[in-house]
C-alpha cells in the first residue's frame, strides 16, 4: 500500500484512504515462469475437468466429476458418493485444510502467491490490462488522462474482455453440476434451468468485480485466510524477505560510487515495488499485503545481475535464517527447515486421514437395509389368532446395475413374511426383490407369527444375489399383545 503521509499533506487530514490502482510492471524470471505454469495448470483443471468422460455403464452418468444435486449423488471418477456417505467429502475438505496448513507452515503463503483463484484471476486480468493498455507507465498515464474517445474505446475493449473471461468463469462452474455437453446445448438454446443462468450471472458479476477491480483489496481487506495464516507461521517458515542488513542504507549507484562502503546493496530502484501485484514495498518487512508471489525476487535478482552484485537481496528465507545470515553464520540446510516437528505432525495427520478414507472406501458395501416398524397400529391380531407386524424396509442398491436381493427373517419362531408386491399366499421366511440400479427401494413388509412366538425382536438380513454376495441386516421390535409398553 502506498500510504500517503497524513501529517505532511496539506489541507484537512484524510481519515479514509482511497484505493490506489496497482499497475504492476512486467517482469520475467524463474518465479514468474513458475506462476505462469501454475496458472495454466489450475485454469486447465478448472475448465477441462467437467468434460472428462468416465464410463459407468448404462444406468449412471458418464461425467468423471459430477455433483448431481437433483439426484443427490456425487461422482468423482471411480467413486460414487451418496448423501449418507458425505463424510468422504468432509474428509477430503479436512485434508485440503490440513494440506493448506502444512504448506503454510513449510513454505509460507505459497497458496496465496500462486494457486488461490483470486490470485490466478487477478494475474489474468492484469495481463489483460497490459495487453490492452500497455505496461505500467502507459497504464498510469491513461488512468490520469481525460476521457477522450480513445480512452473510452480502450476501456470498452478492456472491460469487454473482462466480461468475457468472467462469463466463462461462471459458465465453466455450472458444468460441474450437470452433464456438460447437454448443459452447454441447453444453455445456449434457453433450455437450461433458471438456476444455471442465475449462477452464471452471479459468478460473472463476482469475477468481473473481484478480478477486474477489487483485486488485491480482496486479499488485504476481505479474505480471512491471511489472518489465520499468521497463526501457522513461525520463525522457520519461508517468507519473501528483504535482507535489510545487506541492503541498508539504500543509495543510488551514483552515490555508492562517490562514497563506497557507506551504502548497502539496495540501490533504491523501486523495481520490487513496481512489479508487485498488490502494490506493497517489501522492504518495509513482512506484511499482510504480501502474498509471497516472489515477483519482487525476480525483479531484484535481475537488477543485481545488471549491476554485478550477488542475487538474493530479496529472497525466500526464514526469519531464523535471516538472523543467522545477518550474524554471519552459515544458513541451515533447506531440508532441516522443512523437516521439523510441526510439518511432520501435519503430514502424519494428513496422511492418517487419507489412509482412513481409503480404508473406508475399500470396505464400504454397496447394499444396505434400514428397517422401521409401522406403529399405527403396533401389531394386528389375525383371525387365526396369529400376530402380524408391518415394517417399512429401505433397500439400497448403490451399484450402477440392478440387483436382486434376498430378504431373510431371523427371530420369532414360525414367522413368515410377505410384502406389498408379494401376496400373503406366498408368505415365507425369505423373499427376493429386485432393486433398480442406483436406487433405494421401499418395501412394506408384513410378518406374521404365532401368538406364542418366542421372540420380541426381529432381524431382516439382506444378501445380494450376485457374485459379491454383500450382506447387511437390521434388527427391530416385534410387537405382540403381551407388550405392556
Amino acid at each position: 500500500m502506498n500510504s500517503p503521509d497524513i501529517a505532511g499533506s496539506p489541507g484537512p487530514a484524510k481519515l479514509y484512504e482511497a484505493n490506489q490502482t496497482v499497475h504492476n510492471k512486467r517482469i520475467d524470471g524463474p518465479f514468474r515462469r513458475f506462476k505462469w505454469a501454475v496458472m495454466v495448470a489450475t485454469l486447465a483443471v478448472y475448465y477441462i475437468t467437467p468434460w472428462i468422460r468416465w464410463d459407468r455403464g448404462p444406468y449412471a452418468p458418464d461425467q468423471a466429476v459430477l455433483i448431481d444435486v437433483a439426484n443427490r449423488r456425487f461422482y468423482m471418477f471411480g467413486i460414487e458418493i451418496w448423501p449418507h456417505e458425505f463424510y468422504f467429502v468432509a474428509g477430503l475438505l479436512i485434508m485440503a485444510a490440513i494440506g493448506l496448513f502444512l504448506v503454510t507452515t513449510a513454505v509460507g503463503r505459497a497458496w496465496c502467491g500462486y494457486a488461490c483463484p483470486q490470485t490466478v484471476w487477478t494475474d489474468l486480468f492484469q495481463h489483460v490490462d497490459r495487453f490492452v493498455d500497455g505496461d505500467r507507465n502507459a497504464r498510469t498515464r491513461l488512468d490520469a488522462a481525460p476521457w477522450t474517445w480513445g480512452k473510452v474505446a480502450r476501456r470498452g475493449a478492456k472491460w469487454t474482455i473482462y466480461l468475457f473471461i468472467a462469463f466463462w468463469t461462471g459458465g465453466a462452474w455450472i458444468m460441474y453440476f450437470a452433464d456438460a455437453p447437454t448443459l452447454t446445448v441447453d444453455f445456449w438454446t434457453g433450455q437450461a434451468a433458471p438456476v444455471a443462468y442465475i449462477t452464471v450471472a452471479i459468478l460473472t458479476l463476482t469475477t468481473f468485480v473481484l478480478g477486474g477491480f477489487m483485486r488485491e483489496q480482496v486479499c488485504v481487506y476481505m479474505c480471512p485466510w491471511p489472518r489465520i495464516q499468521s497463526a501457522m507461521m513461525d520463525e522457520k517458515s519461508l517468507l519473501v524477505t528483504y535482507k535489510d542488513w545487506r541492503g541498508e542504507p539504500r543509495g543510488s549507484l551514483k552515490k555508492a560510487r562517490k562514497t563506497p562502503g557507506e551504502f548497502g546493496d539496495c540501490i533504491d530502484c523501486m523495481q520490487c515495488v513496481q512489479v508487485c501485484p498488490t502494490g506493497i514495498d517489501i522492504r518495509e518487512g513482512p506484511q499482510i499485503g504480501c502474498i509471497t508471489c516472489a515477483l519482487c525476487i525476480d525483479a531484484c535478482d535481475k537488477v543485481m545481475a545488471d549491476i554485478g552484485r550477488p542475487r538474493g537481496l530479496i529472497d525466500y528465507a526464514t526469519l531464523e535464517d535471516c538472523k543467522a545470515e545477518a550474524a554471519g553464520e552459515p544458513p541451515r540446510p533447506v531440508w532441516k527447515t522443512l523437516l521439523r516437528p510441526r510439518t511432520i505432525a501435519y503430514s502424519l495427520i494428513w496422511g492418517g486421514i487419507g489412509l482412513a478414507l481409503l480404508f473406508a472406501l475399500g470396505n464400504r458395501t454397496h447394499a444396505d437395509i434400514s428397517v422401521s416398524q409401522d406403529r399405527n397400529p403396533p401389531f394386528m391380531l389375525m383371525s387365526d389368532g396369529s400376530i402380524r407386524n408391518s415394517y417399512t424396509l429401505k433397500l439400497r442398491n448403490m451399484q450402477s446395475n440392478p440387483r436382486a436381493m434376498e430378504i431373510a427373517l431371523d427371530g420369532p419362531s414360525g414367522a413368515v413374511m410377505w410384502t406389498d408386491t408379494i401376496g400373503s399366499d406366498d408368505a415365507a421366511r425369505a423373499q427376493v426383490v429386485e432393486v433398480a440400479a442406483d436406487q433405494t427401494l421401499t418395501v412394506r413388509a408384513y410378518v406374521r407369527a404365532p401368538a406364542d412366538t418366542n421372540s420380541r425382536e426381529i432381524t431382516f438380513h439382506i444378501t445380494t444375489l450376485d457374485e459379491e454376495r454383500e450382506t447387511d441386516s437390521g434388527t427391530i421390535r416385534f410387537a405382540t399383545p403381551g407388550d405392556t409398553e
Partner: protein
Amino acid sequence: MANERPDSKRVDQATGTEFVGHEWDGIEELDTPMPRWWVLTFYATIIWAIVYVVLYPAWPMIEKGTEGVLGWTSRGQLAQEMSVADQAQTTFREQLARVPIERLPDDSVLMQRAVAGGAAAFKVNCVQCHGSGAAGSQTLGYPNLSDDDWLWGGDLRAIEYTLVHGIREQGTEGTRTGAMPAFEGLLDAAQLGAVTDHVLSLSGKAKANPAGAEVYAAQCAVCHGANGEGDRAQGSPNLSDAIWLYGSSREQVMQQILNPRMGMMPSWQKRLDPVTIKMLAAYVHSLGGGEDFIEVAQDPETQVDEQP
C-alpha cells in the same frame, strides 16, 4: 433546538462537515450525511411501496381492502395452484377411471399411486371412525380394516361396493343390510349362559356345552353357520376366529346376544367421486388383510366408470 441553529453553520476543519450544534463536554456532533447509496436505496423502497400499493391489495378499508390493479389475491393464487395440481393428476385419474378395479393389481404403478391417493383420502374421510391406523375401535364398535377378518368381504370389489353403498344406510339402494335379532326375553338365563359358552367354545375360549349347542343350532346357525363360520352375504360375523368386533369376554358376548349392536357406515357415492372411492378401496385392501378375487369378473369392461 431552535436556539442552537446559528451554530450549525460552523464547519469541522478535519472533515469539512457541518456541526449539528450539540456539544457535550467539548465533544461535538457532526451533521454527517447518510451515505448516498443508503439514501438512494431508501428512496427506492418508497417508490417500491407506492408501486406495490397500486398493484397489490394493500390498504384496509371499512368493508374490505383495496384490491390493486393486478387483481391478485392469495385465495386466487391458491385456487390456481390447486388447479395446476389437479391438472397434474388428470392423466392418472383418467387411467384409474378406465381400469376396472379387478384389473387394478395388474398395473403395479397405477396400484401404488391409487394406494397413495387412497391413504390421503382415508385421512380426510375415514379416520374419524376407523382410526388413523385403520385399526378401528372395539369399544366403539368400529371394525378394524387392517386385519384379515371381513364382515362383508375383503376383495377389492367387495370393499369398493361397501364404500359406494354403505352399510345399513337408510334410503340408499343396494346398501349392505343384515340384522341380528335381540334375544332379550326369548332366552332364559340358563339358555343364554349355555349358548354363550357354546359360542366361546367355537374359538376354543370355553369348554363344549351340549345344551348351548342345541340352542345355537336352533337360533343362531341359520345366519352364523353350523360351526360359527359366519355369512358374508348378510354380514354375519365369523364366531370361530380370534377377532371380536364388540369384545370376546363372556359378558360382552352375552350382551351382544341380548341387545346386539349393529354398526352402520354411510354410503360414499354422494360425497366422493368414483375414482376417489376406487383409491380408498385400494388403500384399505393394501393395509395387510386384502383378499384376492376368487374369480375374476367375466366382462370387467362393463364396470367402467365414466366419470373420472
